[in-house]
Protein backbone atom coordinates (compact mmCIF):
# COMPACT_ATOMS: atom_id res chain seq x y z
CA UNK A 1 0.00 0.00 0.00
CA UNK A 2 1.08 3.55 -0.49
CA UNK A 3 1.60 5.51 2.72
CA UNK A 4 -1.66 6.04 4.64
CA UNK A 5 -1.74 9.18 6.77
CA UNK A 6 -4.02 10.03 9.68
CA UNK A 7 -4.28 13.40 11.44
CA UNK A 8 -5.57 13.43 15.03
CA UNK A 9 -6.99 16.69 16.33
CA UNK A 10 -7.83 17.21 19.99
CA UNK A 11 -7.09 19.23 23.08
CA UNK A 12 -4.17 18.64 25.45
CA UNK A 13 -5.26 15.91 27.88
CA UNK A 14 -7.70 14.19 25.51
CA UNK A 15 -5.16 11.64 24.41
CA UNK A 16 -4.94 12.51 20.70
CA UNK A 17 -1.23 11.66 20.65
CA UNK A 18 -1.86 8.41 22.53
CA UNK A 19 -4.34 7.45 19.81
CA UNK A 20 -1.74 8.30 17.15
CA UNK A 21 0.88 6.18 18.95
CA UNK A 22 -1.45 3.21 19.52
CA UNK A 23 -2.37 3.20 15.85
CA UNK A 24 1.31 3.22 14.88
CA UNK A 25 2.11 0.51 17.40
CA UNK A 26 -0.84 -1.58 16.14
CA UNK A 27 0.76 -1.74 12.71
CA UNK A 28 3.26 -4.47 13.60
CA UNK A 29 3.43 -6.03 10.12
CA UNK A 30 4.54 -2.95 8.21
CA UNK A 31 6.22 0.35 8.95
CA UNK A 32 4.76 3.26 10.87
CA UNK A 33 5.56 6.64 12.38
CA UNK A 34 3.66 8.61 15.02
CA UNK A 35 4.44 12.12 16.21
CA UNK A 36 2.70 15.13 17.72
CA UNK A 37 3.02 18.75 16.72
CA UNK A 38 6.05 19.48 18.83
CA UNK A 39 6.26 21.82 21.74
CA UNK A 40 5.33 22.34 25.37
CA UNK A 41 2.28 20.30 26.39
CA UNK A 42 -0.62 22.33 27.78
CA UNK A 43 -3.90 20.92 29.00
CA UNK A 44 -6.81 22.21 26.95
CA UNK A 45 -4.72 23.72 24.15
CA UNK A 46 -5.38 22.42 20.62
CA UNK A 47 -2.97 19.63 19.63
CA UNK A 48 -2.41 17.70 16.45
CA UNK A 49 -0.81 14.31 16.08
CA UNK A 50 0.04 12.25 13.04
CA UNK A 51 0.22 8.56 12.17
CA UNK A 52 1.76 7.27 8.95
CA UNK A 53 1.46 3.62 7.91
CA UNK A 54 3.16 1.88 5.00
CA UNK A 55 4.52 -1.46 3.84
CA UNK A 56 7.86 0.19 3.07
CA UNK A 57 9.94 2.29 5.50
CA UNK A 58 8.40 5.73 6.12
CA UNK A 59 11.22 8.19 5.43
CA UNK A 60 9.12 11.34 5.09
CA UNK A 61 8.81 12.89 8.57
CA UNK A 62 7.09 16.09 7.51
CA UNK A 63 3.63 16.98 8.84
CA UNK A 64 0.79 15.48 6.87
CA UNK A 65 -0.65 17.82 4.24
CA UNK A 66 -2.90 15.25 2.49
CA UNK A 67 -4.55 12.79 4.87
CA UNK A 68 -6.49 9.59 4.30
CA UNK A 69 -8.36 10.25 7.51
CA UNK A 70 -8.73 13.11 9.98
CA UNK A 71 -10.13 12.33 13.44
CA UNK A 72 -11.42 15.32 15.44
CA UNK A 73 -11.72 14.38 19.11
CA UNK A 74 -13.27 17.68 20.17
CA UNK A 75 -16.03 19.06 17.93
CA UNK A 76 -15.19 22.67 18.85
CA UNK A 77 -11.95 22.18 16.88
CA UNK A 78 -13.78 21.28 13.65
CA UNK A 79 -13.52 23.87 10.90
CA UNK A 80 -14.42 23.46 7.19
CA UNK A 81 -10.78 24.30 6.35
CA UNK A 82 -9.85 20.81 7.57
CA UNK A 83 -11.31 19.38 4.33
CA UNK A 84 -8.36 20.92 2.47
CA UNK A 85 -6.05 18.55 4.38
CA UNK A 86 -7.85 15.45 3.03
CA UNK A 87 -6.83 13.33 0.07
CA UNK A 88 -9.45 12.66 -2.61
CA UNK A 89 -11.84 10.18 -0.97
CA UNK A 90 -10.34 10.78 2.48
CA UNK A 91 -12.60 10.68 5.54
CA UNK A 92 -13.11 13.31 8.21
CA UNK A 93 -14.58 12.00 11.47
CA UNK A 94 -15.93 14.34 14.14
CA UNK A 95 -16.72 13.29 17.68
CA UNK A 96 -20.23 14.72 17.78
CA UNK A 97 -23.84 13.69 18.36
CA UNK A 98 -24.92 16.18 15.69
CA UNK A 99 -24.55 15.95 11.93
CA UNK A 100 -21.53 17.72 10.41
CA UNK A 101 -21.87 18.53 6.72
CA UNK A 102 -19.43 16.57 4.57
CA UNK A 103 -17.98 14.76 7.59
CA UNK A 104 -18.80 11.56 9.43
CA UNK A 105 -20.27 12.25 12.88
CA UNK A 106 -19.60 9.69 15.56
CA UNK A 107 -20.72 10.18 19.14
CA UNK A 108 -17.57 8.95 20.89
CA UNK A 109 -18.44 10.90 24.05
CA UNK A 110 -21.50 8.71 24.72
CA UNK A 111 -19.61 5.44 24.23
CA UNK A 112 -16.79 6.66 26.49
CA UNK A 113 -19.27 7.85 29.13
CA UNK A 114 -21.14 4.52 29.15
CA UNK A 115 -17.89 2.76 29.96
CA UNK A 116 -16.75 5.46 32.37
CA UNK A 117 -13.72 6.35 30.27
CA UNK A 118 -12.56 9.90 30.98
CA UNK A 119 -11.12 10.36 27.45
CA UNK A 120 -12.33 9.36 23.99
CA UNK A 121 -9.05 8.46 22.31
CA UNK A 122 -9.39 4.66 22.18
CA UNK A 123 -13.07 4.96 21.18
CA UNK A 124 -12.10 7.22 18.28
CA UNK A 125 -9.19 4.94 17.38
CA UNK A 126 -11.57 1.99 17.18
CA UNK A 127 -13.95 3.97 14.98
CA UNK A 128 -11.10 5.02 12.67
CA UNK A 129 -10.09 1.36 12.40
CA UNK A 130 -13.64 0.25 11.72
CA UNK A 131 -14.38 2.96 9.14
CA UNK A 132 -11.10 2.86 7.22
CA UNK A 133 -10.14 -0.80 7.61
CA UNK A 134 -6.53 0.30 8.17
CA UNK A 135 -6.26 -1.61 11.47
CA UNK A 136 -8.26 -4.45 12.98
CA UNK A 137 -9.77 -4.82 16.43
CA UNK A 138 -7.16 -7.49 17.26
CA UNK A 139 -4.31 -5.16 16.30
CA UNK A 140 -5.71 -2.45 18.57
CA UNK A 141 -6.01 -4.96 21.43
CA UNK A 142 -2.37 -5.93 20.96
CA UNK A 143 -1.30 -2.27 20.99
CA UNK A 144 -3.31 -1.62 24.18
CA UNK A 145 -1.70 -4.66 25.83
CA UNK A 146 1.76 -3.58 24.73
CA UNK A 147 1.66 0.12 25.46
CA UNK A 148 -1.05 1.04 27.99
CA UNK A 149 -0.72 0.75 31.79
CA UNK A 150 -2.25 -2.52 32.97
CA UNK A 151 -5.07 -0.94 34.99
CA UNK A 152 -6.44 0.79 31.87
CA UNK A 153 -6.32 -2.12 29.46
CA UNK A 154 -9.58 -3.98 30.15
CA UNK A 155 -11.76 -0.88 30.16
CA UNK A 156 -10.27 0.38 26.92
CA UNK A 157 -10.50 -2.98 25.20
CA UNK A 158 -14.16 -3.16 26.17
CA UNK A 159 -14.70 0.23 24.56
CA UNK A 160 -12.94 -0.88 21.37
CA UNK A 161 -15.07 -4.04 21.31
CA UNK A 162 -18.24 -1.96 21.72
CA UNK A 163 -17.35 0.29 18.74
CA UNK A 164 -16.49 -2.59 16.43
CA UNK A 165 -19.74 -4.40 17.36
CA UNK A 166 -21.92 -1.30 17.14
Amino acid at each position, binding site marked *: MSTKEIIWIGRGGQGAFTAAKLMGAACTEGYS*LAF*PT*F*GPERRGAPVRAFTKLSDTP*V*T*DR*SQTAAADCIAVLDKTLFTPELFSLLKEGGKLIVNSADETEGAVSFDADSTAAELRLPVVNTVMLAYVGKLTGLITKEQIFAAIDGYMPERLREKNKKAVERVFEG
Partner: protein
Amino acid sequence: MKRFLSGDEAFAEGIRLACPDVISAYPITPQTVVVERLSEMVEDGSLDSEFIHVESEHSALSCAIGASAAGVRTFTATSSQGLLYMAEGLPYAAGGRFPVVMMNANRATALPWNIYGDQRDSLALLDTGWIQEYAADAQEALDMAVMSYYIAEHRDVSTPFMVNLDGFVLTHTYENVDIPDRERVREFLPPYETENCFDFEHPKNIGFSAGPETNFIFKYKEHRAFERAIHVIKEAERRFGELFGRKYTGLAEEYLTEDADYVIITLGTAAGLCRTIADELRREGVKAGVLRIRYMRPFPNEEIARALKNAKAAAVLEKDISFGNAGTVYVNVAAALQWAGVSTPLYDFVGGLGGKDITHADIRNIYESMGKGAPRVTFMGIGVE
Protein backbone atom coordinates in the same frame (compact mmCIF):
# COMPACT_ATOMS: atom_id res chain seq x y z
CA MET B 1 12.30 -7.72 20.17
CA LYS B 2 10.26 -5.08 18.29
CA ARG B 3 8.99 -2.04 20.20
CA PHE B 4 7.26 1.16 19.08
CA LEU B 5 9.52 3.83 20.60
CA SER B 6 10.54 7.45 20.24
CA GLY B 7 14.11 8.29 19.22
CA ASP B 8 14.94 9.26 22.81
CA GLU B 9 13.49 6.01 24.17
CA ALA B 10 15.27 3.95 21.52
CA PHE B 11 18.57 5.62 22.39
CA ALA B 12 18.05 4.88 26.09
CA GLU B 13 17.42 1.22 25.20
CA GLY B 14 20.74 1.21 23.33
CA ILE B 15 22.52 2.64 26.36
CA ARG B 16 20.93 -0.03 28.58
CA LEU B 17 22.51 -2.61 26.26
CA ALA B 18 25.92 -0.88 26.21
CA CYS B 19 25.72 -0.68 30.02
CA PRO B 20 27.99 2.24 30.96
CA ASP B 21 29.37 2.10 34.50
CA VAL B 22 28.75 5.79 35.10
CA ILE B 23 26.00 8.05 33.74
CA SER B 24 26.10 11.75 34.57
CA ALA B 25 23.59 13.96 32.86
CA TYR B 26 21.41 17.01 33.33
CA PRO B 27 17.95 17.13 31.71
CA ILE B 28 17.19 19.57 28.89
CA THR B 29 14.44 19.53 26.23
CA PRO B 30 14.39 17.60 23.88
CA GLN B 31 16.90 15.20 25.47
CA THR B 32 15.03 14.86 28.80
CA VAL B 33 13.35 11.54 28.01
CA VAL B 34 16.76 9.83 27.66
CA VAL B 35 17.77 10.93 31.16
CA GLU B 36 14.36 9.96 32.60
CA ARG B 37 14.37 6.49 31.05
CA LEU B 38 17.94 5.78 32.13
CA SER B 39 17.25 6.82 35.73
CA GLU B 40 14.15 4.56 35.71
CA MET B 41 16.25 1.67 34.40
CA VAL B 42 18.85 2.19 37.13
CA GLU B 43 16.03 2.41 39.68
CA ASP B 44 14.32 -0.82 38.56
CA GLY B 45 17.64 -2.65 38.41
CA SER B 46 17.60 -3.39 34.68
CA LEU B 47 20.67 -1.18 34.18
CA ASP B 48 23.64 -1.62 36.51
CA SER B 49 25.10 1.88 36.32
CA GLU B 50 26.05 4.56 38.78
CA PHE B 51 23.67 7.42 37.95
CA ILE B 52 25.22 10.65 39.19
CA HIS B 53 22.86 13.60 39.51
CA VAL B 54 24.75 16.78 38.72
CA GLU B 55 23.88 20.44 39.01
CA SER B 56 24.77 21.46 35.45
CA GLU B 57 25.95 20.27 32.06
CA HIS B 58 29.45 21.54 32.81
CA SER B 59 29.52 19.19 35.80
CA ALA B 60 27.90 16.38 33.79
CA LEU B 61 30.76 16.26 31.32
CA SER B 62 33.44 16.93 33.96
CA CYS B 63 32.06 14.01 35.92
CA ALA B 64 32.08 11.74 32.86
CA ILE B 65 35.70 12.73 32.13
CA GLY B 66 36.68 11.94 35.73
CA ALA B 67 34.93 8.59 35.63
CA SER B 68 36.56 7.75 32.30
CA ALA B 69 39.95 8.62 33.84
CA ALA B 70 39.15 6.02 36.49
CA GLY B 71 38.94 3.50 33.64
CA VAL B 72 35.21 2.89 33.29
CA ARG B 73 32.61 3.24 30.53
CA THR B 74 30.77 6.56 30.74
CA PHE B 75 27.73 8.25 29.24
CA THR B 76 26.27 11.74 29.20
CA ALA B 77 23.54 13.44 27.18
CA THR B 78 22.57 17.02 26.44
CA SER B 79 21.25 19.52 23.90
CA SER B 80 21.72 23.08 22.67
CA GLN B 81 22.58 25.48 25.52
CA GLY B 82 23.57 22.48 27.62
CA LEU B 83 26.09 21.41 24.99
CA LEU B 84 27.45 24.95 24.82
CA TYR B 85 27.78 24.97 28.60
CA MET B 86 29.81 21.75 28.28
CA ALA B 87 32.05 23.37 25.67
CA GLU B 88 35.03 23.85 27.99
CA GLY B 89 35.08 20.14 28.74
CA LEU B 90 34.80 18.94 25.14
CA PRO B 91 38.46 19.41 24.10
CA TYR B 92 39.46 18.26 27.59
CA ALA B 93 37.79 14.89 27.00
CA ALA B 94 39.24 14.69 23.49
CA GLY B 95 42.76 15.77 24.43
CA GLY B 96 42.77 13.38 27.39
CA ARG B 97 41.68 10.64 24.96
CA PHE B 98 38.74 9.73 27.17
CA PRO B 99 36.16 7.79 25.10
CA VAL B 100 33.07 9.35 26.67
CA VAL B 101 29.89 8.76 24.65
CA MET B 102 27.38 11.60 24.49
CA MET B 103 23.90 11.81 23.00
CA ASN B 104 23.08 15.30 21.76
CA ALA B 105 19.53 16.25 20.82
CA ASN B 106 20.08 18.81 18.06
CA ARG B 107 18.30 22.02 19.01
CA ALA B 108 18.50 25.71 18.15
CA THR B 109 20.71 28.01 20.20
CA ALA B 110 19.50 31.24 21.85
CA LEU B 111 18.71 34.08 21.23
CA PRO B 112 15.81 34.15 20.30
CA TRP B 113 15.02 31.37 22.75
CA ASN B 114 13.80 28.27 20.94
CA ILE B 115 13.52 24.62 21.99
CA TYR B 116 13.06 23.18 18.50
CA GLY B 117 15.44 21.30 16.28
CA ASP B 118 18.32 22.61 14.24
CA GLN B 119 21.96 21.64 14.06
CA ARG B 120 23.73 24.84 15.02
CA ASP B 121 24.62 23.48 18.48
CA SER B 122 26.81 20.52 17.50
CA LEU B 123 28.14 22.03 14.26
CA ALA B 124 29.46 25.03 16.21
CA LEU B 125 31.56 22.55 18.20
CA LEU B 126 32.89 20.52 15.28
CA ASP B 127 36.51 21.39 16.08
CA THR B 128 36.60 20.16 19.67
CA GLY B 129 38.00 16.73 18.84
CA TRP B 130 34.86 14.60 19.13
CA ILE B 131 33.65 12.08 16.59
CA GLN B 132 30.24 13.32 15.39
CA GLU B 133 27.55 11.07 13.97
CA TYR B 134 24.04 12.13 12.89
CA ALA B 135 21.31 9.48 13.07
CA ALA B 136 18.40 9.44 10.60
CA ASP B 137 15.90 7.23 12.44
CA ALA B 138 15.23 5.63 15.81
CA GLN B 139 16.80 2.30 14.81
CA GLU B 140 20.03 3.99 13.82
CA ALA B 141 19.94 5.95 17.09
CA LEU B 142 19.66 2.73 19.11
CA ASP B 143 22.32 0.96 17.08
CA MET B 144 24.69 3.94 17.38
CA ALA B 145 24.27 3.95 21.18
CA VAL B 146 25.91 0.52 21.05
CA MET B 147 28.30 0.98 18.13
CA SER B 148 29.63 4.33 19.37
CA TYR B 149 31.30 2.57 22.33
CA TYR B 150 32.96 0.01 20.09
CA ILE B 151 34.47 2.81 17.99
CA ALA B 152 35.27 5.34 20.74
CA GLU B 153 36.89 2.79 23.08
CA HIS B 154 38.87 1.00 20.34
CA ARG B 155 42.60 1.19 21.13
CA ASP B 156 43.33 2.76 17.75
CA VAL B 157 40.78 5.52 18.35
CA SER B 158 40.34 6.33 22.06
CA THR B 159 38.33 9.44 21.24
CA PRO B 160 35.01 10.75 22.62
CA PHE B 161 31.91 10.21 20.50
CA MET B 162 28.84 12.43 20.04
CA VAL B 163 25.70 10.84 18.55
CA ASN B 164 23.31 13.52 17.29
CA LEU B 165 19.53 13.09 17.04
CA ASP B 166 17.39 15.78 15.39
CA GLY B 167 15.38 17.45 18.15
CA PHE B 168 11.70 16.38 18.11
CA VAL B 169 11.68 15.12 14.50
CA LEU B 170 13.74 12.17 15.73
CA THR B 171 13.81 12.44 19.54
CA HIS B 172 9.99 12.64 19.83
CA THR B 173 8.82 10.63 16.82
CA TYR B 174 7.71 7.05 17.46
CA GLU B 175 8.53 4.15 15.19
CA ASN B 176 9.15 0.42 15.32
CA VAL B 177 12.65 -0.50 16.43
CA ASP B 178 14.31 -3.83 16.95
CA ILE B 179 16.01 -4.13 20.35
CA PRO B 180 18.91 -6.56 20.04
CA ASP B 181 19.46 -9.41 22.45
CA ARG B 182 21.59 -8.44 25.46
CA GLU B 183 23.89 -11.46 25.28
CA ARG B 184 24.68 -10.80 21.63
CA VAL B 185 25.45 -7.15 22.42
CA ARG B 186 27.92 -8.39 25.04
CA GLU B 187 29.51 -10.48 22.33
CA PHE B 188 29.79 -7.39 20.10
CA LEU B 189 30.91 -4.99 22.81
CA PRO B 190 33.40 -6.33 25.35
CA PRO B 191 33.88 -4.50 28.69
CA TYR B 192 35.98 -1.34 28.48
CA GLU B 193 39.64 -1.94 29.11
CA THR B 194 42.26 0.80 29.01
CA GLU B 195 45.66 1.79 30.27
CA ASN B 196 44.64 5.44 30.03
CA CYS B 197 43.44 5.57 33.63
CA PHE B 198 44.48 6.01 37.24
CA ASP B 199 46.17 2.86 38.48
CA PHE B 200 47.86 2.43 41.87
CA GLU B 201 49.94 -0.47 40.52
CA HIS B 202 51.20 1.50 37.55
CA PRO B 203 51.06 5.16 38.54
CA LYS B 204 51.10 7.66 35.69
CA ASN B 205 50.32 11.29 35.03
CA ILE B 206 46.87 12.00 33.58
CA GLY B 207 45.57 15.39 32.51
CA PHE B 208 49.05 16.88 32.29
CA SER B 209 50.30 20.04 30.62
CA ALA B 210 52.43 20.08 27.47
CA GLY B 211 54.39 23.17 26.39
CA PRO B 212 55.27 24.43 22.91
CA GLU B 213 57.90 21.72 22.37
CA THR B 214 55.47 18.81 22.59
CA ASN B 215 51.90 20.16 22.47
CA PHE B 216 51.58 19.86 18.69
CA ILE B 217 52.55 16.20 18.85
CA PHE B 218 49.51 15.48 21.01
CA LYS B 219 47.32 17.36 18.55
CA TYR B 220 48.81 15.43 15.65
CA LYS B 221 48.04 12.18 17.47
CA GLU B 222 44.41 13.24 17.91
CA HIS B 223 44.22 14.01 14.21
CA ARG B 224 45.69 10.61 13.32
CA ALA B 225 43.17 8.88 15.58
CA PHE B 226 40.38 10.22 13.35
CA GLU B 227 42.05 8.73 10.29
CA ARG B 228 42.23 5.36 12.06
CA ALA B 229 38.62 5.78 13.19
CA ILE B 230 37.52 5.48 9.55
CA HIS B 231 38.75 1.87 9.50
CA VAL B 232 37.37 1.12 12.95
CA ILE B 233 33.93 2.43 11.90
CA LYS B 234 33.97 -0.01 8.95
CA GLU B 235 35.08 -2.86 11.20
CA ALA B 236 32.36 -2.04 13.77
CA GLU B 237 29.68 -1.96 11.05
CA ARG B 238 30.83 -5.24 9.53
CA ARG B 239 30.76 -7.01 12.91
CA PHE B 240 27.45 -5.37 13.82
CA GLY B 241 25.95 -6.51 10.51
CA GLU B 242 27.12 -10.09 11.07
CA LEU B 243 25.59 -10.24 14.55
CA PHE B 244 22.40 -8.22 14.11
CA GLY B 245 21.74 -8.24 10.36
CA ARG B 246 21.57 -4.46 9.95
CA LYS B 247 23.88 -2.80 7.47
CA TYR B 248 25.38 0.66 7.87
CA THR B 249 27.36 2.45 5.21
CA GLY B 250 30.27 4.18 6.92
CA LEU B 251 30.79 7.92 6.82
CA ALA B 252 28.01 8.59 4.29
CA GLU B 253 24.88 6.95 2.94
CA GLU B 254 24.15 7.36 -0.75
CA TYR B 255 20.79 7.08 -2.47
CA LEU B 256 20.60 6.94 -6.28
CA THR B 257 23.80 8.99 -6.58
CA GLU B 258 25.50 6.68 -9.09
CA ASP B 259 24.02 8.27 -12.22
CA ALA B 260 22.49 11.37 -10.59
CA ASP B 261 22.56 14.74 -12.35
CA TYR B 262 21.39 16.58 -9.23
CA VAL B 263 22.39 15.62 -5.69
CA ILE B 264 21.29 16.98 -2.32
CA ILE B 265 23.79 16.53 0.51
CA THR B 266 22.32 16.69 3.98
CA LEU B 267 22.51 15.44 7.59
CA GLY B 268 20.10 13.53 9.81
CA THR B 269 16.37 13.07 9.29
CA ALA B 270 16.01 15.58 6.43
CA ALA B 271 17.57 12.92 4.18
CA GLY B 272 14.37 10.85 4.43
CA LEU B 273 12.20 13.50 2.82
CA CYS B 274 14.90 14.14 0.19
CA ARG B 275 14.72 10.44 -0.74
CA THR B 276 10.94 10.63 -1.12
CA ILE B 277 11.27 13.62 -3.47
CA ALA B 278 14.19 12.03 -5.36
CA ASP B 279 11.90 9.04 -6.05
CA GLU B 280 9.17 11.38 -7.33
CA LEU B 281 11.61 13.25 -9.58
CA ARG B 282 13.01 10.00 -10.97
CA ARG B 283 9.46 9.03 -12.01
CA GLU B 284 9.30 12.38 -13.83
CA GLY B 285 12.58 11.64 -15.62
CA VAL B 286 14.89 13.84 -13.51
CA LYS B 287 17.98 12.03 -12.28
CA ALA B 288 17.96 13.08 -8.63
CA GLY B 289 20.08 11.62 -5.82
CA VAL B 290 20.75 12.09 -2.10
CA LEU B 291 23.94 11.83 -0.09
CA ARG B 292 23.43 11.71 3.66
CA ILE B 293 26.51 12.62 5.66
CA ARG B 294 26.48 10.24 8.66
CA TYR B 295 29.76 11.40 10.17
CA MET B 296 30.79 15.07 10.20
CA ARG B 297 34.00 13.91 11.93
CA PRO B 298 35.75 12.01 10.51
CA PHE B 299 34.42 13.64 7.33
CA PRO B 300 33.47 11.63 4.18
CA ASN B 301 35.73 13.57 1.79
CA GLU B 302 36.24 10.71 -0.67
CA GLU B 303 32.61 9.59 -0.72
CA ILE B 304 31.40 13.12 -1.45
CA ALA B 305 33.92 13.74 -4.22
CA ARG B 306 33.07 10.41 -5.86
CA ALA B 307 29.30 10.92 -5.65
CA LEU B 308 29.39 14.46 -7.03
CA LYS B 309 32.06 14.00 -9.70
CA ASN B 310 29.64 13.44 -12.59
CA ALA B 311 26.68 15.45 -11.29
CA LYS B 312 25.55 18.61 -13.12
CA ALA B 313 24.96 20.41 -9.82
CA ALA B 314 24.71 19.70 -6.12
CA ALA B 315 23.24 21.44 -3.10
CA VAL B 316 23.83 21.20 0.61
CA LEU B 317 20.69 21.33 2.74
CA GLU B 318 21.64 22.19 6.30
CA LYS B 319 20.05 23.40 9.52
CA ASP B 320 22.99 25.68 10.17
CA ILE B 321 24.57 28.96 9.14
CA SER B 322 27.99 30.31 10.01
CA PHE B 323 27.21 34.03 9.94
CA GLY B 324 29.42 35.98 7.57
CA ASN B 325 30.11 32.96 5.40
CA ALA B 326 27.97 29.93 4.46
CA GLY B 327 26.76 26.94 6.48
CA THR B 328 29.45 24.77 8.07
CA VAL B 329 28.39 21.66 6.16
CA TYR B 330 28.66 23.56 2.87
CA VAL B 331 32.19 24.72 3.65
CA ASN B 332 33.26 21.17 4.47
CA VAL B 333 31.67 19.71 1.32
CA ALA B 334 33.20 22.44 -0.84
CA ALA B 335 36.65 21.61 0.56
CA ALA B 336 36.14 17.92 -0.25
CA LEU B 337 35.39 18.84 -3.87
CA GLN B 338 38.32 21.24 -4.08
CA TRP B 339 40.82 18.62 -2.86
CA ALA B 340 39.54 16.09 -5.36
CA GLY B 341 39.52 18.61 -8.23
CA VAL B 342 35.75 18.20 -8.72
CA SER B 343 34.20 21.34 -10.21
CA THR B 344 30.49 20.46 -9.87
CA PRO B 345 28.62 23.68 -8.95
CA LEU B 346 27.65 23.56 -5.28
CA TYR B 347 24.95 25.62 -3.60
CA ASP B 348 23.98 26.06 0.02
CA PHE B 349 20.39 25.92 1.26
CA VAL B 350 19.87 26.89 4.89
CA GLY B 351 16.58 25.55 6.23
CA GLY B 352 14.81 24.09 9.23
CA LEU B 353 16.28 26.70 11.59
CA GLY B 354 14.51 26.83 14.95
CA GLY B 355 12.44 23.78 13.99
CA LYS B 356 10.81 25.17 10.83
CA ASP B 357 9.16 22.25 9.02
CA ILE B 358 10.99 21.33 5.80
CA THR B 359 8.26 20.57 3.26
CA HIS B 360 7.97 18.59 0.03
CA ALA B 361 7.85 21.90 -1.88
CA ASP B 362 11.10 23.05 -0.20
CA ILE B 363 13.00 19.97 -1.40
CA ARG B 364 11.53 20.16 -4.92
CA ASN B 365 12.56 23.80 -5.01
CA ILE B 366 16.17 22.89 -4.12
CA TYR B 367 16.39 20.34 -6.94
CA GLU B 368 14.83 22.78 -9.40
CA SER B 369 16.92 25.81 -8.41
CA MET B 370 20.26 24.02 -8.53
CA GLY B 371 19.57 23.14 -12.16
CA LYS B 372 19.05 26.82 -12.95
CA GLY B 373 21.91 28.17 -10.86
CA ALA B 374 20.84 29.32 -7.42
CA PRO B 375 22.50 32.01 -5.29
CA ARG B 376 25.48 30.65 -3.36
CA VAL B 377 23.58 30.75 -0.06
CA THR B 378 19.78 30.60 0.05
CA PHE B 379 17.87 31.09 3.27
CA MET B 380 14.85 28.89 2.59
CA GLY B 381 11.56 30.72 3.10
CA ILE B 382 13.28 34.07 2.56
CA GLY B 383 15.10 33.33 -0.63
CA VAL B 384 17.81 35.99 -0.55
CA GLU B 385 21.54 35.60 -0.71
